[in-house]
């Protein structure tokens, strides 16, 4: 449905600074009907990519195709302006026009857009769009009298009223409070799924991304780091950056002993077996990524030694309600575990940890971004 090819975009430097490379050769493909997420920290280029798709920014080079129609191509010198791309978009600020009623906001694309409809069709179409977001009763309300959640729904209705080819969502949940955010996330997902509309979603929040998407593209400094399903990206990170960005993880630096399916790395706590990417060769500096939820406490009766089993001692426990964050020490390293709140472990207790090999991911070593500790 949507194909992005080799997008490059740079902004001229301001105040004597260097030019900013916003996008460096970004390519991806979006399937018809998919919810596709651009994820990354601020400044990674996700918003620029969305703006280029929308036509609000123009890339320096590359191509953007929707269906079999190019809307941008530097080689064929095609540039379709934003208003001719037949898109719907929900902006971060919602961009609800405060001088109009809810009805007029939603009717705008039908009255002033490219795909205009006969005037007698406007009212039923607007009403249908508003009912889709459960706001049918608010049509005549002036836009400034809406709550944040209602504004968001109006923005969604406006974006969908003219049945666009593509729906763009620019951090639509970031201005809502936490509880409403969860509700809206589920609602938006089920709505766009029931309409079958292809959706591009931009966010910096990995929980939102995992909950919303069919596919995720994780970006960093204008480049794609990893693309895949939420499960793949969370459980099989291809880099320290992905592992770190998608959630908490224990990182064990080491050296790869042998690669492939039965990979093993030598680390400070001993040899750890895991899954390694095929690009890694024995002898390379690597990092073993183990999610806190991946670690299992082995029964006492089991022998201490064996594959991926390590003696450890409980150092600290923090009761958080739904989990107990537990810090253990093994081989001079600290590991974090998430235990269920009914655990009988106490600080100082000795135990045996098991790191199931299929839950240990070996990635190339890289300096973890300093000063960041994403949840």
């Amino acid at each position: 449905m949507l194909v992005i090819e080799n997008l490059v975009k740079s902004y001229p430097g301001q105040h004597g600074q260097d030019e900013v490379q916003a996008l460096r050769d970004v390519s991806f493909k979006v399937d018809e009907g998919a919810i596709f997420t651009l994820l990354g920290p601020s400044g990674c280029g996700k918003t620029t990519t969305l703006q280029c798709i929308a036509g609000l920014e123009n890339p320096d080079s590359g191509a953007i195709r929707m269906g079999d129609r190019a809307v941008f191509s530097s080689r064929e010198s095609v540039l379709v302006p934003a208003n001719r791309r037949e898109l719907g978009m929900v902006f971060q600020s919602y961009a609800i026009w405060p001088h109009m009623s809810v009805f007029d906001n939603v009717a705008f694309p039908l009255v002033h857009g490219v795909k205009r409809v006969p005037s007698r069709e406007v009212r039923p179409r607007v009403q249908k769009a508003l009912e889709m977001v459960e706001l049918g009763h608010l049509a005549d309300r002036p836009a400034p009298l809406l709550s944040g959640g209602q504004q968001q729904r109006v923005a969604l209705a406006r974006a969908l009223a003219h049945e666009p080819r593509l729906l763009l969502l620019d951090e639509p949940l970031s201005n809502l409070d936490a509880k409403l955010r969860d509700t809206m996330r589920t609602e938006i997902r089920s709505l766009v799924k029931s309409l079958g509309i292809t959706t591009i979603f931009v966010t910096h929040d990995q929980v939102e991304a995992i909950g919303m998407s069919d596919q995720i593209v994780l970006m960093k400094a204008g480049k794609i780091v990893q693309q895949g399903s939420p499960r793949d990206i969370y459980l099989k990170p291809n880099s320290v950056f992905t592992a770190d960005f998608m959630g908490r993880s224990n990182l064990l630096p080491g050296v790869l002993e042998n690669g492939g399916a039965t990979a093993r790395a030598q680390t400070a706590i001993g040899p750890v077996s895991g899954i390694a990417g095929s690009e890694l060769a024995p002898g390379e500096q690597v990092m073993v990524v183990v999610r806190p939820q991946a670690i299992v406490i082995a029964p006492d009766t089991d022998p201490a030694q064996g594959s991926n089993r390590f003696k450890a001692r409980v150092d600290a426990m923090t009761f958080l309600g739904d989990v107990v964050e537990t810090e253990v020490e093994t081989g001079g390293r600290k590991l974090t575990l998430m235990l269920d709140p009914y655990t009988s472990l106490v600080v100082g207790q000795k135990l045996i940890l098991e790191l199931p090999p299929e839950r240990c991911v070996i990635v190339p070593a890289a300096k973890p971004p300093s000063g960041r500790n994403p949840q």
Partner: protein
Amino acid sequence: MTTGSVTGARRSGVRLDQQKLVLALLLAVVSILVLGPVLVLIRASFAPAESMPLETLEFTLKNYVQLLQSPRTLSLIWNTVVYALSSMAIGVAIATAIAWCTERTDMPGRILVRILMFAWMMVPALVVGFGWILLLNPGNGALNVMFRELFGFARPLLTIYTFWSLIVVTAFAVVPTAFVMISSLLRNMDPNLEQAARVHGGNAWATLTRVTLPLLTPGLFSIGIYMFMAVVQAFDLPLIIGLSADVPVLSTRVYLLSSPDNGLPNYGLASAFGVLLLVVAAGLMWAYMRATRLGERFRVVTGKAFRPKRIKLGRWRFAALGFTFGYCAVMMLPLLILLWVSLQPSYSTPSLSALGGLSLDIYRRLLANPMISRAVLNTVILVVSSATIVMVVSSLIGWFTVRSNSKAGKILDALSFLPMAIPPIVLVLAILLLYLNTPLYGTIWILVLGHVTIYIAFGVRTMSSALIQIHKELGDAALISGASWLTSLRKVVFPLVWPQILNGWLWVFAHSARDLTVPLMLMSTGNLVAASTLWNLWQFPDLPGAAALAILLMVALLVVVVPSQLYVARRLER
């Protein structure tokens, strides 16, 4: 569906052209309005005195030599500087005192003072000047006559035709504008800074002199430069008072050289003086920009309105009241005398015995005069078209200065700001030189052209500061919804800033109606407006007629502008 991409490409041309076309059009319009006259003015200053600048190829430095050699040049510059500096200093001092009383003390009648000040900003300086002449001219000025009769003075009490009278009248006239600027400066200053001084043991006087005034200094400094610049560019008061007082300044000199009472106009020398005045004004503009940037650095203005604790004046309140309402009373005098004169069939000084003779005859005579009705019609055309054209062009330029990063946008911004540094008298001289031999000259439209050029800089400032507060996504949302660029402006962006557009429109409307410079310099029988007719009646002389017209002009302005401004102010506060 390759055809899709082809039509898409062609369509993209359409939109880009829409934006590019408007940009090109604006650039062309602003260049013609601003650059054309300035280049012709510079050319004229190098042309021989007896020829028109566009009809000769000769280049000569004669005008500049004459300008530099004449001993009068130095006295002109001296007069201008003394005039501007003294009026500015007195005006800003009075305005600061009144603003401090209304913003920071519990003086009664604060709201009345604010309303009066806003109303006076609408009163043409020309009208005030005429009023003062009627009050204080040495022969039969009303105040002089009264004092002579009451106390038997042999000599007039005060006379209007002196340098000092000119300075004081001008100072009084700049007070309302300075008051509005200074009170917003005071209003935006964080009162915590003052309270901190009080908490740490400073008394009221120490707080005022050690904290409040030093904090206000950068702001007051830039307001001072702005006012100085305004007085340097002033033309009407130096014309009606200064020339009789034999105090020529640069602006009246330019006028006399290009429209002499007898003999041929010396456009070459006038242009050379014009260039001199232009350089002075541009220097002041530069100083003003530096000063305001410096002010930003000391910025204690946080943007939100504070509710400061008002200082209790106690017994001092009578002094404050006396001072403030003393000023207000003095400002009422010229308007009252005009009203009086306009109600007398033939001119006589105010007295109880003349009270019986009051009538509206003058107004009837005035309104029956076809020349007057013509002038009224012309005035309406002038002010409505100037205000409308300025705001349409400024709104579009404002959008480009805020939203476009292109070079063309920056050039547009700079070009539209340029008239700010060109004194109106110089600009009108330049317009005169450029259009003298075109059919436009002598019509009302040449006046519209002049006013559009003069007020465009104000319009663009107003609109770009309004548009910068409109979230970019509001316009983007319209584009994504499929609307063209112009539709997004028409339906979304401009409707969101209409209070500011209306405010700017009213400002241009009022200033265009009160301006004498443009109508007088470009006067012909076909384009008389209220201000130039007022001048003609005064010169004729038909004093009751002039007074009645002045009152009508003033009332019309107040009735249209003040309620609308109050309405807009309320809309903006919401």
